[in-house]
């Protein structure tokens, strides 16, 4: 409990999410979007690029059949940083995230255009096997989706798949460290061979995170990983993300602005498939430059 309280506090001090002034600001900027709309360019506000990019997207368009879901998005994912993707639902956050490990490939009618790179390497050429890519760019999904197997087998699945362990004891070691890093070890170490689906929602999600990091990916993509969890489980996962940042590059989709503020260094705001604004998380939340961003952050779009 204590750690959670501390967490909430630090988040509150780090970012000043306007709560009290909400009303007064609302009056002030109510007419702003419509007044500025015609003049508004498609240019992303802020700086979508970083110096040491782990992954980079340039002019990415995504179509579901005829319908375009992502419009000309360019964005970098800096090394060892947590990038938060926020925006109203249906704005294309998940779609963009899934471009980064080519999960969109499995949707037949989905078409991706543009340039996507991992360490400067094009991930959409023939030479890049999607299987290898997904081993390097792991993913945690919105709904916890452990396999209906034992906890151990869940975590061991990836290492077994990629032959990461030479023998049983090495595999045991990988499973143990992954569960430890996911903060689940203490709760499950005595029942590793029980079904993973028998855990609580928050535990299942941490199991899925453990499963993802067991493959030692370089990048972890998280699509609203805490949306189905209670506040305590959410806090545990947020702490975990903070810790994982030391070794991994993380992109996280979230609909909770507090969460984005707490865990991320940079924030990207999407609206109707367009990347509206990117910047340091502190800056975006305290001083949004685009009226759409401001409206969203102050709670007028949701």
């Amino acid at each position: 409990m204590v750690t959670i309280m501390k967490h909430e506090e630090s988040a509150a001090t780090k970012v000043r999410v306007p709560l009290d002034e909400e009303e007064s600001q609302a009056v002030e900027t109510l007419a702003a979007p419509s007044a500025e709309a015609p003049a508004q360019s498609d240019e992303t506000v802020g700086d979508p690029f970083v110096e040491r990019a782990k992954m980079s997207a340039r002019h990415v368009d995504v179509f579901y059949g005829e319908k375009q879901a992502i419009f000309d998005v360019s964005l970098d994912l800096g090394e060892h940083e947590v990038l938060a993707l926020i925006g109203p639902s249906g704005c294309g956050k998940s779609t963009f995230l899934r471009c980064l490990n080519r999960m969109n490939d499995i949707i037949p009618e989905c078409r991706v255009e543009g340039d996507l790179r991992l360490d400067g390497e094009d991930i959409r050429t023939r030479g890049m096997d999607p299987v290898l890519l997904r081993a390097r760019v792991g993913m945690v999904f919105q709904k916890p989706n452990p396999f209906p197997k034992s906890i151990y087998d869940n975590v061991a699945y990836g290492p077994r798949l990629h032959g990461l362990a030479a023998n049983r004891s090495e595999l045991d070691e990988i499973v143990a460290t992954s569960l430890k890093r996911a903060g689940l070890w203490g709760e499950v170490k005595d029942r590793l061979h029980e079904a993973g689906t028998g855990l609580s929602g928050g535990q299942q999600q941490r199991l899925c995170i453990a499963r993802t990091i067991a493959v030692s990916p370089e990048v972890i993509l998280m699509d609203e990983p805490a949306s189905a969890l209670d506040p305590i489980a959410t806090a545990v996962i947020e702490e975990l993300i903070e810790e994982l940042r030391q070794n991994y590059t993380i992109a996280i989709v979230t609909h909770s602005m507090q969460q984005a503020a707490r865990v991320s260094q940079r924030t990207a705001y999407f609206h109707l498939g367009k990347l509206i604004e990117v910047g340091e998380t502190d800056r975006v939340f305290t001083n949004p430059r685009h009226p759409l961003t401001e409206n969203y952050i102050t709670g007028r779009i949701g």
Partner: protein
Amino acid sequence: MVSNMTPTESVKKGLARRYRKERRFRALGLLAVWLGFTFLVILLADITIKALPAFHQTWIKLDVYFDPEVLGFEPGRPIREEALLHADFRGVVRRSLYAMFPQVRKHRDKRKLGALVSSAAQYQVRDLLRAHPDWLGKTVPVWVRADDDVDTYLQSASLQGVAQDHRRLRDNQVAWLRELEKQGRIERRFNWLFFRSADSREPEQAGILGAVVGSFYTLLVTIALAFPLGLAGAVYLEEYAPRSRWVDLIEININNLAAVPSIVFGLLGLAVFINFFGASRSSPLVGGMVLALMTLPTIVIAARAAMKAVPPSIREAALGLGASHTQMVFQHVVPLAMPGILTGTIIGMAQALGETAPLLMVGMVAFIVDIPHSFTDSATVLPVQIYLWADSPERAFVARTSAAILVLLGFLVLMNGAAILLRKRFERKW
């Protein structure tokens, strides 16, 4: 109208009607269930009662005199097998009966007397002499099977009440039977032969084993063909086939195939397997292939439904960890779909077990007295055996028909039980 009522009032007003509707529906449902259940019980009881006589067999004790003269054997000489096969054991059996009833003189009456025992008695007596050559010239008490008419008469109280014109056993035959009974020469025993022999023209010698073995071989062929083919087809269509007009066409056809009358599959089997490929008629191999064709769509449809039911989140989880499409399919989708696939397969097999029409087309309706020993032997199957017996005029075959139905139902229950067990064993939740 509604405006001057509060919502609570209007809801209350509708409530009574809603309850009435609910009660009516429940009563209807219950009635339907009970009706179905009652009919099932009546049917089962009727079959069981009719089948009971088939499980019992009357035996008659004869004092058989192995007469060297009648048999044409010289005492003290070894008996050649050849001579054994041609010797008049029928005469030996008859004579032992005549000896018990010396008052029977007329030729016609003697024939009636001889008809009391099964025609199989002579073979039983022959086998005894083969086993004990020293019995030649001696008199030995031997229990032999009674004829099916005797069985039918003794087991049916209603027959015993009617005049002799309405039954097969004459009055003098009944009198001899009563005499034998008085001497303790009549016994009722459990009819093991029914479970140990194949079909016969004589009801008391007819058994179900030939058909059971035939069904077993046939179903073995069916499952060996239909399960792997059906599974492979389902996996391909569900997981690999590109979405195209061709695949849609194949899908529609598979669904239609499941509704094709089974006799059509029999015609197809006749034309393709027998006339074109020259496979042997009446064999479990051909029957099994025909039934496999018939079962295939069932398995494909069940397997595809089971694979569709595997949640997409599991697929995403596997792919997200770097599993290839094929790894995802065979490590996750197929194992998770297995309970459904197995259930579908067993239901398909149960269907095949009860199928008659297509097998008639490929000649499995033949009268076969040998238990089949291979996939290419001539054989019959349980439902065809039922059909054959139901068609026979002898009254004792009525009981055998019912008994065969019970056996078939027993196997069906076993198979469904297996389906439930498998489903329980493989069941996973997510």
